[in-house]
């Protein structure tokens, strides 16, 4: 099957299957949202708690579609020169010096502002991508960027073109598959939401989380994994814990316990490895390990 056929013959069920082959357990609703984003050529905005696999889905999707992943990490103060393009000034300077030595300064301007002196930042790289399948453009943590950058994105996501005054307007041949993620550190503007499909990624169900651990962590007993999932779920429900652990924390914890060859989840192992899931001093002081362990012990009793 050619790459183009891969995109053409995509269904929700095959997408779930392929994602799982690449070690990503997706809900049917997430797979449907991705499927719709691909088929409708619309950006997909995924919001949710930190560490729930929002960034990972873009990476895995690029692998599934056998295409490139182009990532733009957002932060406060992100501007066009970091997101679109910048001229390679040192290289331009060196080139001028070389031409001076040669004494040949004809067509210097058109040479100096040509593609070979252009540093392609993620958005331009996505527009200029030449491949059978369009790239996956991940605009990560858009909530960290300023509102001004969000305003710029409105135009970019509508036109998928970049104008460079010295070169002209560059329009993309194949529209990239755009995935935006947000941790909800601020409300995303209505304008941007309107241009995107929207998916909210919440904490996974117990069964799904256990499935993820089984898929990704090797060398750990299944009963320990089940206890990890129960423990983390109880911690998430505790109102006194400010920073709730996500799936990535569960995975880190399971991997740590696997490295330590833990056979059971008891007070000692929890105390030694708790920093994998609890990452603030206040939360560490507040957490009542014994009560959680006794709670998951009774849960295990009921299910068993």
């Amino acid at each position: 099957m050619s790459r183009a056929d891969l995109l053409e013959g995509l269904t929700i069920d095959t997408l779930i299957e392929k994602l799982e082959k690449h070690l990503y357990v997706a809900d049917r609703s997430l797979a449907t949202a991705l499927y719709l984003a691909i088929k409708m050529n619309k950006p997909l905005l995924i919001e949710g708690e930190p560490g729930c696999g929002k960034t990972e889905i873009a990476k895995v999707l690029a692998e599934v579609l056998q295409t490139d992943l182009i990532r733009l990490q957002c932060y406060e103060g992100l501007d066009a020169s970091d997101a679109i393009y910048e001229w390679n000034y040192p290289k331009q300077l060196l080139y001028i010096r070389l031409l001076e030595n040669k004494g040949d300064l004809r067509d210097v301007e058109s040479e100096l502002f040509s593609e070979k002196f252009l540093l392609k930042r993620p958005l331009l790289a996505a527009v200029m991508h030449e491949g059978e399948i369009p790239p996956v453009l991940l605009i990560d943590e858009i909530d960290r960027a300023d509102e001004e950058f969000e305003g710029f994105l409105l135009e970019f996501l509508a036109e998928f073109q970049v104008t460079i005054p010295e070169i002209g307007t560059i329009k993309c041949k194949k529209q990239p598959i755009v995935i935006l993620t947000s941790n909800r550190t601020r409300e995303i503007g209505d304008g941007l939401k309107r241009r995107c499909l929207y998916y909210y990624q919440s904490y996974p169900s117990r069964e799904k989380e256990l499935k993820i651990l089984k898929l990704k962590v090797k060398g750990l007993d299944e009963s320990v994994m089940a206890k990890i999932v129960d423990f983390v779920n109880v911690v998430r429900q505790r109102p006194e814990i400010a920073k709730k652990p996500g799936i990535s924390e569960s995975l880190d914890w399971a991997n740590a316990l696997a490295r330590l060859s833990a056979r059971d989840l008891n007070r000692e192992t929890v105390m030694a490895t708790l920093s994998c899931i609890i990452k603030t001093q206040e939360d560490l002081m507040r957490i009542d390990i014994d009560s959680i362990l006794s709670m998951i012990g009774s849960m295990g009793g009921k299910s068993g």
Partner: protein
Amino acid sequence: MHLYDFVCGLARSLRRQGLKVGISESIDACQAIGLVIDRGFEDILTAIRVTMVKDPSKYHLIEQALEEVATGGGGTGEGESGEQGGEGSEYAMQPMGMSRGSGQDQNSASTQFVMYSPAESLHRRSLRPIDIHALKTGKRIIKRMRRRLAVLPGRRSTASKKGDIAFAKTIRHSFRTFGEIMELRKSTKILSRARLVALIDISGSMDTYTDWLVRAMYLFSRFTRRVEVFVFSTRLRRITDLLAITDFDEIRRRLSSEIDLWGSGTRIGYSLKIFLDNYGNMLNRSWIAVIVSDGWDTGEPELLKFSMSNLRQRVGRIIWLNPHTDKPNFRPLTIGMMTALPYIDVLAGMSVLEDYSSFLRFFGKSIKPLKRGESLVRRQPERLAL
């Protein structure tokens, strides 16, 4: 029913329930449902969610809208402004004295009597308009306040003689002299402004101040986007979106009609918990929380303690404005104040709001610009004597 009729009915119903569902959302929904229509109900529901309801807290409205469309209730096209249609059902409990003036109401008034009810007593109220003079003064004051909020070194830089050498700018500048570097360009980091979250108690005991506070917050929202405003009494409502509307008369109208929390009891701890649960992710040490409340809390002190300590962890500074602090013999003896006090950085009275200059002075004192490298750290609770 045709797909287009179904989507239009659904959009109308969702709009009536206060969701912003425009034409583009309806078009997307038609396309998305068309792509999954031969699949199960779950996929169709996802298609509706991803295209029409872009707020997870509103997902429950879809079921109601689907029911309306199925029973033919979504197709009239009237009352789409979200006022007439939704109001009757959502606010079935009209407080006394706010009936719609029909003859039947007047007749039944004689049979009404007052007794205890476990249900919340929620009210609406009308707010005073804002005059052009206040707007101009407010703009001037807020501009000065914005400067005082600039306390954190950001990532952006500006040209400066005293700053660090900016390599890219120096090279770019050297093009004017054919690549010969004649001058080193320097730049310094621009200070970012701290973000402000205002949590305003609009319960009965704070009635005197709510009018002024809403107007102040409107002015603040007009001239800076770095502010989030919430009102609370027994529940919490975010009003940042409402305050973003340019026309204050429209804001007054919508605050009066849509916010039904005015003048009831107070559950500070519960409201703070809801705030932290839903909006806690947006907070960090660059935020300043301003709580305006008299500290009369009818909720559990434990919950207030827990919520305050949680808030303490997440923001850089907590300022509490309490009207009773102005009284000469004030001592924070209410359970609410006693519980919250250890977590507060600055406790001040409402006298700081008497005029704009004292308000500014208060802000200058409580949000002192930080030195280079200094972070927003907790200070000992202090009372500002103004």
